[in-house]
């Protein structure tokens, strides 16, 4: 190892980054585009759901229930005479769900509150083609009905008795306003770090081979440790600047509340970045071809950090095999650590376990990269 050589190589790398627009584009412009996309473009919240109502019972009691449904700002109700009509409306996409109140509902209900055995039922039909909205629709409706009973209970007009009383309280922890951007934006840091960490570094060693400079470097006094370290240092600095840049946007422009500790956030991000750089350099060193490397980095770096990190799909709701696969995706640990740092403050257990995983991954990729780097074009 020779510090002068490393310094010269890092300097060279930065000059190349500054003069080659594509590096700046990947490190700063692309993340910004992604942030805006996630901040404004993707929204998992639903504000008003259009639903249909079919009331076959037509009593004052059911009218009351419907009244309360219509009263919430989350539901926009349309009335249908028969379930058939509501079905058609659902098919046409005019409504996302409908509820049917069967004949005898009121009678059943009264039987129940007077202590007899009875099952008053309301049917909710949702449009499964849009699972997200369907989920929202059904839970909104359920919520509205529950709060109706609660109100009646409190008012005293319906006595449900001690044990049969319906009492619910819905409250969301950590994301009180239930804004999905508060979760998505911090978690998208994993994609952004993968961009500079893996996609950009996947190009840099291959570029040296393609442009014939690697051959020239190999005949100088540079050792392979010098080479690998200089790449690590240069892209770590660049990646870290990109992280700071994006955090500024997330916290000050998008105004996502931050409850955790900056030191914890930067430490976790730094180690995740090291993991990414290691993976990118390893791909590049082995493949020696910019095109294949970038394809490979996209497939094994970028896609998992988007799909399998819990950013878009909840890991616990994926099939067993995928869940097993997620165990090896560093981004998954990072996403959970960052979102908890942002939304709920420092949870030492999460931070430490994440750090341990990151250490293992970054050591592993670094070791592989070093092993794959050769002092000659081929070795024994």
């Amino acid at each position, binding site marked *: 190892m020779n510090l002068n050589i490393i310094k*010269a190589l890092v*300097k060279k790398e930065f*000059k190349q980054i500054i003069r080659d627009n594509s590096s700046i584009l990947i490190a700063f412009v692309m993340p910004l585009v992604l942030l805006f996309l996630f901040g404004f473009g993707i929204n998992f919240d639903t504000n008003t759901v259009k639903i249909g109502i079919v009331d076959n019972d037509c009593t004052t009691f059911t009218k009351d229930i419907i009244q309360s449904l219509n009263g919430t700002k989350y539901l926009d109700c349309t009335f249908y005479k028969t379930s058939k009509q509501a079905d058609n409306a659902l098919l046409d996409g005019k409504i996302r769900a409908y509820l049917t109140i069967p004949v005898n509902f009121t009678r059943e209900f009264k039987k129940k509150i007077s202590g007899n055995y009875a099952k008053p039922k309301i049917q909710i039909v949702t449009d499964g083609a849009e699972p997200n909205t369907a989920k929202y629709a059904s839970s909104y409706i359920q919520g509205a009905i529950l709060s109706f009973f609660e109100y009646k209970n409190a008012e005293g007009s319906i006595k449900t008795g001690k044990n049969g009383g319906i009492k619910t309280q819905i409250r969301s922890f950590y994301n009180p306003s239930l804004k999905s951007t508060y979760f998505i934006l911090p978690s998208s840091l994993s994609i952004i770090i993968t961009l500079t960490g893996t996609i950009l570094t996947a190009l840099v060693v291959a570029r040296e081979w393609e442009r014939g400079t690697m051959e*020239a470097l*190999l*005949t100088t006094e540079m050792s392979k440790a010098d080479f690998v370290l200089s790449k690590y240092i240069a892209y770590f600095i660049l990646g870290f600047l990109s992280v700071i840049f994006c955090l500024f946007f997330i916290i000050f422009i998008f105004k996502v509340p931050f409850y955790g500790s900056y030191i914890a956030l930067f430490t976790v991000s730094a180690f995740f970045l090291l993991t990414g750089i290691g993976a990118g350099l390893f791909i590049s060193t082995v493949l020696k071809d910019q095109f294949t490397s970038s394809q490979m980095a996209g497939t094994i770096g970028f896609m998992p950090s988007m799909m399998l990190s819990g950013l878009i799909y909840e890991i616990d709701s994926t099939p067993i095999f995928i869940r097993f696969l997620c165990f090896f995706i560093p981004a998954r640990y990072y996403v959970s650590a960052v979102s908890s740092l942002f939304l709920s403050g420092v949870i030492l257990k999460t931070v430490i376990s994440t750090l341990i995983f990151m250490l293992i991954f970054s050591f592993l990729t670094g070791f592989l990269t070093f092993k794959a780097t050769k002092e000659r074009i081929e070795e024994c």
Partner: protein
Amino acid sequence: MNELLVVKNLNKTFVGEKNSSISNISFNLKEGEKLSLIGPDGAGKTTLLRLLSGLLLPDGICENKENSPVYISGFSPYSNLNEVKKLIGYMPQRFGLYEDLTVMENLELYADLKNIEKSKREELFETLLKFSGLADFTKRTAGALSGGMKQKLGLSCTLLSRPKILFLDEPSVGVDPVSRRDLIEITEKLAHENKIGVIWATSYLDEAKFFKNYLLLDEGRKISQGCVSDTEKSMKGLVFYSGNKSDKKRTFLNKILKDEYGITDATIEGDRVRTVFKDLVSAQNFPFDKEETEPVFEDFIMYTFKDKKHKIDESVRNIEVSPPDNIAIEAIGLTKRYGNFIAANNISFKVKKGEIFGLLGPNGAGKSTTFKMLCSLIKPTEGKSTIFGFDIQKQPQEAKKNFGYMAQKFSLFGNLSVRQNVEFFMGVYNVKRSVQEVIKGYDLEKYINRNASSLPLGYKQRLALCCALVHDPPVLFLDEPTSGVDPVIRREFWMRINNLVKHKTSVLVTTHFMDEAQFCDKIALCYKGKILVTDTPDNLKNSVKSEKLKHPSMEDAFIEIIRRAS
């Protein structure tokens, strides 16, 4: 004098390949000795240099580290790589420069990488910049330098550590002849003053004459090795100019290439035919006019490779149609501008029927631009051109029927078979003949079902020519037809063209091989977008004759004409 480099029984077979890339090479190099490593593309030159500099490992070295086939000043590049790195300067193809960095930044980077003391740098940089003539361009990025300047910068970076031995891999590719001459002179001087050993790998045979010794490589084997001047002397009495000026040179050439005359090589050089005999007896018994001349190194190469040659079928269709005024191709004031840059400036010339017309010049001279305008691949900014009287802009369909085009690098469909390639071009030109008939005379039958990409280079070239000629065009365009092809295949190619021209095909060819230009009836010298002069090869050579240059070569003529123009 000490042996600087000792190579003994060097072998290299790449993993997964049947044939060895380097087989059983041995040679030595002394201090200050200059050696040209010559051979066609794929001969193993780069592999050999990489082996010598320790970038690749020879066969068997992993099993037995002690038994090194290469020693540089007593160090093996396989077990003592760090010592060897201090002794060698290796300049890879494309010079190993960082194109985003400036001249000075490249120098500084390599100085850091080679651990040059800071105090010594200023003086060192100054010397190197002075010798390379780059002192005024230190702030320019390497990517913006011309080929010749890049080459000098690459060499400067290599020289920073004051190596004892220089390995230069194809330093002259993409460099104009003037810069090439410069670089060779610089290298000679350096080697002489500092006793540096030099190995200069090149596929341009004519470069061998600039160095004292040569090593000729083909298919990984050493074909011959020795001193260039001795080798030339050994050919004495075998090389003649034959035929007299009244003979039709192309017919005469075909006539003498029969076995009974014992000729190993014959080629048109201006007005005469250069003839190499296989022995003195054949030379004596030759029944036509002849005049002895000084042998050159290429004669020797052709003599060495005499068994590699192919017989050429002479059955070529006569071109019966005649263009108006007998002018097959005409360019009138062709100009192409890209913004402020003029790629081709007011190019005008005429090519008669049955003539070979050459556009000669270094890379970037505007040959290809002119060429592409003539074939209507790009639109001229000004001017017009005609083929057989048809304006290529106004009547492109008629004009295109009249020419065949063979592009640089052959542009064949690599994953189609020979038959499919031919069938495709027949379809494009609506030719109603059998494939067998079309490929007759090209000796392609045995490869008919093989993919074009896997053909040997010579066959690829033949197939490309065959495809360009499926529709029997009276005009043939050849764009750098012989780059990267070995001299024997080149000769064979020109024999085919000779046949076509004898039967009145008109040919327009671009080339940067100076010696190849001899084959043309007329040459236009292109330089920086302009035609400097248009004349016959002999007239061009004679125009630069002087006391100093009694027998100027085509390259001498070219360099002299450019010097006078600027």
